């Protein structure tokens, strides 16, 4: 439909803008690192970089040029996909990110799906299960949302790996290896999503159209799957963009604990080694991923909720 194309175009423009602004922020972040920017690019004072190396970086990054020229050069390089060279990895930042991106994306998506499943299941059960279930459900969500990743990871390892011995405590190839990391990220997220879902599930269940469906002779199970769940999903889907971002944040901790590949771990070691080029590169790529993800969520929202489309038209 025509409204869609217009909408998409507008949103795509927004994405480009966000990326440009993000690039600008990272550019200035790089320049704000105290001391010699050339040295910062090489990893700060710890790099023990010789004068030749520093000189080469200056030339490469045009650090002797005026700031405007540097900025434009930087943007120009970004457009061609050149995010610079990581001193700590001895390779182009883009290559380094490319190697890790898939793992983080997989983890984030699996966690997102898992979080959704957990939140839906818990919310559905607690909404329909009476007072006690309600109290338990809201209690669980509350605690889940308040649990820091690093602590949860430990508890899960202790329980599933060491006590029960059914899941590997570190990432292993194959689907089994992703279970604990994904669970660690999914549980707190499910707490948040569940809180939102339960509210909206309750609202949906008290809506007149549910009465209509009951009056039509629909069973409660069918009503739940056909009607209420979808309504409850709307606000939670809207949160998925945010959720994706928070999962990426969580990946920083979780990937390290479970020794998984991924951007989060790269980022942490880059921060620890003050590999500024790598940090800004990762942040930029994540911003891109996040923006695209938001776009996807909005699209999903339009699919689930035709009303948003109608309004836009």
């Amino acid at each position, binding site marked *: 439909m025509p409204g869609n194309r217009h909408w998409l175009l507008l949103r795509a423009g927004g994405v480009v803008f966000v990326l440009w602004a993000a690039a600008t922020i990272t550019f200035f972040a790089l320049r704000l690192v105290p001391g010699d920017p050339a040295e910062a690019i090489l*990893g*700060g*004072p*710890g*790099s*023990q*970089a*010789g*004068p030749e190396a520093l000189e080469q970086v200056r030339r490469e990054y045009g650090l002797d040029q005026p700031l405007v020229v540097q900025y434009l050069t930087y943007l120009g390089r970004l457009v061609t996909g050149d995010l610079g060279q990581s001193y*700590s*990895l*001895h*390779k182009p930042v883009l290559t*380094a990110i490319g*190697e*890790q991106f898939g*793992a983080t994306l997989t983890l984030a998506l699996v966690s997102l799906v898992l979080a959704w499943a957990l939140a839906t299941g818990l919310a559905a059960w607690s909404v329909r299960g009476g007072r006690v279930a309600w109290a338990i459900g809201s209690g669980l969500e509350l605690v889940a949302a308040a649990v820091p990743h690093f602590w949860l990871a*430990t508890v899960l*390892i*202790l329980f599933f*790996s*060491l006590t029960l*011995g059914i899941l*590997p*405590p*570190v*990432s*292993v190839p194959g689907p089994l290896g992703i279970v604990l990391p994904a669970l660690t990220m999914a549980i707190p997220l499910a707490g948040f999503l569940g809180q939102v879902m339960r509210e909206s599930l309750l609202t949906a269940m008290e809506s007149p159209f549910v009465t209509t469906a009951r009056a039509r002779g629909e069973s409660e199970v069918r009503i739940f799957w056909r009607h209420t769940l979808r309504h409850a999903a709307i606000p939670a889907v809207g949160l998925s963009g945010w959720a994706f971002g928070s999962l990426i944040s969580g990946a920083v901790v979780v*990937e*390290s*604990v*479970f*020794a*998984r*590949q*991924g951007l989060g*771990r*790269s980022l942490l*070691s880059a*921060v*620890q*080694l*003050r590999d500024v080029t790598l940090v800004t590169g990762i942040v930029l790529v994540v911003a891109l991923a996040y923006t695209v993800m938001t776009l996807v969520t909005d699209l999903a929202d339009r699919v689930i909720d035709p009303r948003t489309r109608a309004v836009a038209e």
Partner: protein
Amino acid sequence: MPSRRFSRPRAAVVVTAAVALLLAACSPGGGTSGEPSGEPVTGGTLTYASGDAEPSCLDPHVGGNYPQALIATQYLESLVSLDEDGEVIPWLATEWDVSDDGLEWEFTLRDDVTFTDGTPFDAEAVAANIAHVQDPATASSTGYLALAKIKDVVAVDDHLVRLEMSAPDSALLESLSQVWVAMESPKALERSQEENCAAPVGTGPFVVDTWERQDSVTLVRNDDYNSPPADVAEATEGSDLPYLDSIVWRFIPDSASRYAALQSGEVQVIDNAQPDTIRSAESDDAIEELDAPRPGAANRIELNSGKAPFDDERVREAFIRSVNVDDGIQSLFFGTAERSYSPLSSVEPLGLSLPDLFTVDFTVDTDAASDLLDDAGWAERDADGYRVKDGERLSLDFPVSTNQSIPAEQSLFEQIQADAKTAGFEVNLQPLDLSSWYGVLAENDYDLVSAPYTKVGPDVLRILYHSDSITPAPSGYFANLAQVDDAELDDLLTQASATSDADERAALYEQAQQIILEGYYILPLYDQQNHFLRSSTVQGLRAMPTVSTPTFAGAWLAP
């Protein structure tokens, strides 16, 4: 920081190693983890979990740190090795000879070894490797220092190579035994650094197959392997080494996860084992320990004598007298670490240990410390209980490199901080990332520091405590962090490194260590900890007598 090593001190220059080899081969021990039981089994995949940071380059020529050494030991080999007694034994070189003036070394090379890319191992290859290490573009740090005195390399014939020295270097053989100067295929070295870093090519028992960044390096069996060091060759004669099909070399930085992975059987060997897990593993039949303290310098706290307040020896002594390190080490390390009273590692025979100097008897020493501080002018205390002089607090900056310090050690520093507070010292612990830590050191913004500078042999003392090492390199780094500036000490160290007489050398180093210890420049803690835990199914694992890295050449998985 790459941990720097130097060869282990050996009294005599070994002219022919064959005799020593025969003697040494009879008594494997020390670095071996338990007695192998049963017949070796061929095949299987072993997973190793390293707690160290993932190397950014698998070629230990580049940079040159311990994590690189750990993995490179599996696929690279050196010209010579050491046996369990520290004697130099043949490896890729079968014999060697040195000229009387110590300026020319000739190495006879094995003629039946090829690199895993098919390139033959010959004199040209040795020349190419030494050139690679010395090339500034390689950015070698550890290897570069080890080979600093090699001026030129001449391929006399295919399997005879001559090293020409700029000065006599009694430690050359030990230097060459280190994996940081191991032999790589000259053909492979011609590739770009990025490629060579991803998959260095050597002659070792395993070959780098794939490297999934931040996950694992997969090493597969070198089917044509024929060049174990002489002692191993002797012990395993008739066996087709290595036994394992492959090794998955994982990086699991989180110590709790690493240990859990070992317990659950996901991995079979872990390094950087936590003291408490080592202790609890003792009661676990499924897990065995391999303790291989690193040679070189002991872990110690350096007292910056280059500026106030530690430019006053009384204050240094007062500090050392006021902290109780023994109890802390006992409780934090669960008896897995021995207290050190020496600048050198306990595996260094020339180490001088002065326990009396550092054993603190609190009833006596707190008073002594108090008197010393009073004498030094720090007689008053402020409201917080810290000593003051001229309105200034007795405050000590203690930057801690979180990358280089294990948790137990950081806890020990916290305890030292608490002890020192009683005596009136304010210790400011500053956990820093490596880069910032270097920055602080370069700015001379520290009073206490613990820097695990590792270099095999007593010559490490020259690097660490010769006044030349106070002058920063162009990069700003300097090794003499205690900033010891003592002409007598300088003389002793210079002489010791030049002399080839074993007894004289030993005497010189003893005097040097005496000066360092009695000047209260350092507070020795313990050996550089190097604990491995292995599943009891892993047999035949041993640590290289060179730099204490475990080798899987003779390891197998018991069914």
